[in-house]
């Protein structure tokens, strides 16, 4: 069919079942937006390109589908960079389409020209510069395929302005032909047998699960394996929600701010089975002393992750959708009494967890941030999606909120991007409109993309924004308190911004909760509000996130603290 490049892009998006695009128009994408207008293609206009890319990311994480965003050339593209890097670190499938200056102007330092492919090469799974309309169908087909197969990730398509206007005969390909990338990641079954055999010999096995389980939607197999064996399980930040929250031996997050039992279990286990994890420095502590008594098995789709940070004894290279069902099958067809075999070890770790759970000081006369998170956890529905920003509130959310399912705890893990939360929450809500979406943010993070409150208002996107307002950049201040002689260098905000008025000015409802006695009723009322609302909750300014493994320390060298059990 004869059409221009712009139409071809949008037709291809329809073929890929894209139901919404997040974006911001500009000079190089005028033709694209003209076709979008003619086709009435669903589009969310954010207030900043960074908002668009984070929203596409939140949409992708909440739905498991590819998130799509548009931006113009130059500053449009560079404003996407933080969002692309965020998605890349957490393996989120995105297709970001940017306009480029027209072919004759490329390389001439033209108006709004920036080398987006050059800039995004280190932070994308792949990228393309399209200089001919005839390449568009193949490139779009490949981009979606690459973004969502194997280890997912962001793909950038930079399209020269004149390509959008170029007429050509459009035909969308049925299949992808890439010589260096099959998109299939089936491994060798004998590697699974090796782990199975190692498990028979183990006395203190531990599962250590991460974002890969979420990304591959392998929760059912994982939960069945855990139920069959009774093996204790700990998680990375990205793996929260995968283990059954009713499992007594699911100890939540491990690592720098992980639970005592989770970290001690890593130190004492004799077989650590990592599943979809990358042994990030926030979770290993000093890496040479990570799981020192254990053989390490690693189920992983990305060959480059095996032996990258931690030496692996038993790798299982392949898609978890291939390996976990086979592993489950072996366990279920075995007659062994795994539960009996590991029960002492299981009870031992459970006892540690009961002895030293996540705690905090109560009856302080203030609204404790942890109490707030716990209360929201109790009030929320089984389907509620929690989104966080980055900082202390993020860690408290990870410690005290219990997500019931994967894709219900959305957070910038690898890159730790402040300002991620609000736009990501908008994207999550648009992807899952029937589910309640609650954002935990701080008075630091919210200001980094607070302009998107206006987007929430304009489209009436029903997100509940809970600000844990402590008047400081809490995590920075905590480190300064602990390691920099209480030099609170540029971390005391004491801002004059009235966040409730800010929300109201943008068209979003707002309320403030300052007294512990008001907390429950105030929260109930605010969460029941129809439409977006910002809930500004005043919390103390010197609370630390604990436990904490200081940099360069082993996981069992935690600073404990908190309060009474």
């Amino acid at each position, binding site marked *: 069919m004869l059409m221009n490049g712009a139409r071809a892009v949008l037709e291809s998006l329809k073929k890929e079942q894209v139901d919404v695009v997040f974006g911001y128009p500009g000079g190089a994408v005028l033709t694209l937006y003209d076709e979008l207008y003619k086709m009435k293609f669903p589009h969310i206009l954010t207030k900043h390109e960074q908002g668009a890319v984070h929203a596409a990311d939140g949409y992708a994480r909440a739905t498991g589908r590819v998130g799509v965003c548009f931006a113009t050339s130059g500053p449009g593209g560079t404003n996407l960079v933080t969002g692309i890097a965020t998605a890349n670190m957490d393996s989120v499938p995105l297709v970001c389409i940017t306009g480029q200056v027209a072919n004759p102007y490329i390389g001439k330092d033209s108006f709004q020209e920036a080398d987006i492919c050059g800039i995004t090469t280190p932070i994308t799974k792949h990228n393309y510069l399209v200089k001919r309309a005839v390449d568009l169908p193949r490139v779009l087909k490949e981009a979606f395929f690459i973004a969502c197969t194997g280890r997912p990730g962001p793909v950038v398509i930079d399209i020269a302005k004149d390509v959008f206007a170029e007429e050509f005969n459009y035909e969308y390909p049925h299949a992808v032909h*890439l010589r260096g990338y099959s998109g299939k990641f089936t491994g060798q079954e004998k590697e699974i047998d090796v782990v199975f055999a190692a498990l028979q010999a183990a006395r203190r096995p531990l599962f250590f699960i991460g974002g890969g389980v979420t990304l591959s939607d392998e929760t059912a197999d994982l939960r069945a394996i855990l139920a069959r064996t009774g093996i204790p399980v700990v998680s990375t930040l990205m793996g929260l929600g995968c283990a059954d929250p009713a499992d007594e031996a699911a100890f939540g997050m491990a690592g720098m701010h992980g639970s005592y039992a989770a970290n001690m279990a890593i130190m004492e286990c004799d077989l650590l089975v990592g599943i979809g994890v990358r042994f990030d420095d926030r979770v290993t502590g000093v890496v040479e002393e990570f799981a020192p008594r254990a053989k390490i098995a690693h189920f992983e789709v990305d060959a480059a992750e095996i032996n990258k940070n931690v030496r692996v004894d038993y790798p299982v290279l392949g898609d978890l959708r291939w390996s976990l069902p086979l592993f489950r099958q072996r366990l279920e067809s075995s007659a062994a009494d795994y539960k009996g075999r590991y029960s002492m070890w299981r009870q031992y770790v459970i006892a540690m967890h009961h002895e030293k759970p996540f705690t905090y000081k109560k009856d302080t006369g203030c609204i404790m941030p942890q109490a707030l998170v716990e209360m929201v956890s109790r009030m929320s529905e089984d389907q509620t999606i929690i989104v966080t920003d980055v900082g202390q509130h993020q860690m408290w959310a990870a410690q005290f909120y219990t997500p019931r399912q994967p894709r219900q705890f959305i957070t910038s893990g690898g890159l730790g991007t402040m300002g991620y939360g609000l736009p990501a929450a908008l994207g999550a809500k648009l992807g899952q409109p029937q589910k309640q979406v609650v954002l935990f943010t701080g008075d630091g993070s919210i200001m980094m993309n607070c302009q998107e409150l206006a987007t929430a208002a304009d489209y009436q996107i029903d997100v509940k924004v809970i600000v844990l307002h402590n008047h400081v950049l809490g995590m920075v201040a905590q480190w300064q308190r602990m390691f920099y002689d209480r030099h609170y260098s540029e971390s005391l905000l004491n801002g004059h911004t009235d966040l409730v008025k800010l929300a109201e000015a943008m068209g979003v409802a707002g309320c403030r909760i300052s007294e512990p006695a008001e907390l429950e009723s105030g929260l109930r009322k605010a969460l029941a509000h129809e439409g977006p609302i910002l809930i500004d909750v005043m919390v103390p300014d010197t609370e630390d996130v604990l436990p904490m493994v200081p940099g360069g320390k082993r996981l069992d060298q935690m600073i404990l603290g908190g309060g009474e059990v």
Partner: protein
Amino acid sequence: MKKFLLAVLVDNKPGVLTHVSGLISRRAFNIESISAGYTEEAEVTRINIVVSVESEQELEQVVNQLSKLIDVIKIVNLSEVESIKRELVMIKVRANRNNRADIINVVNIFRAKIVDVGPEDVVIELTGEQGKIDAICEVLSEYEIIEIARTGAIALSRGLLPVKKM
């Protein structure tokens, strides 16, 4: 530090060299040399990379990270198989009536070639393994070397099996 020569077959598409070099710099890998050129297949480019690494694990990371690039079709470590390695150097040396004969002598001993002669200089070309190239550079440094251009090493395996089928 150990050196390995990797033959990397990639799609002959724009941006491929950016992807490869971008990855190398991002992961802070040590590269001795890198060269690229067309192959027997029009749509395939062969990149020859000499990496220097501390350990087997680091080499494994280089190979695995490069393999992840969508444009990369195949990587073979030619230092691990029987192979022939060659490098080309061109050296411009200042030469006058007094020392020209000495320089020609050196060229002959190394079985190098003089490919250009000017009133005050000669350009010498030599193909060989890296050690031989280093050696002629060393000897010629007694004279006045004006400039040197080296290609970096390339290699082919011995026998019938090409890299793409390994």
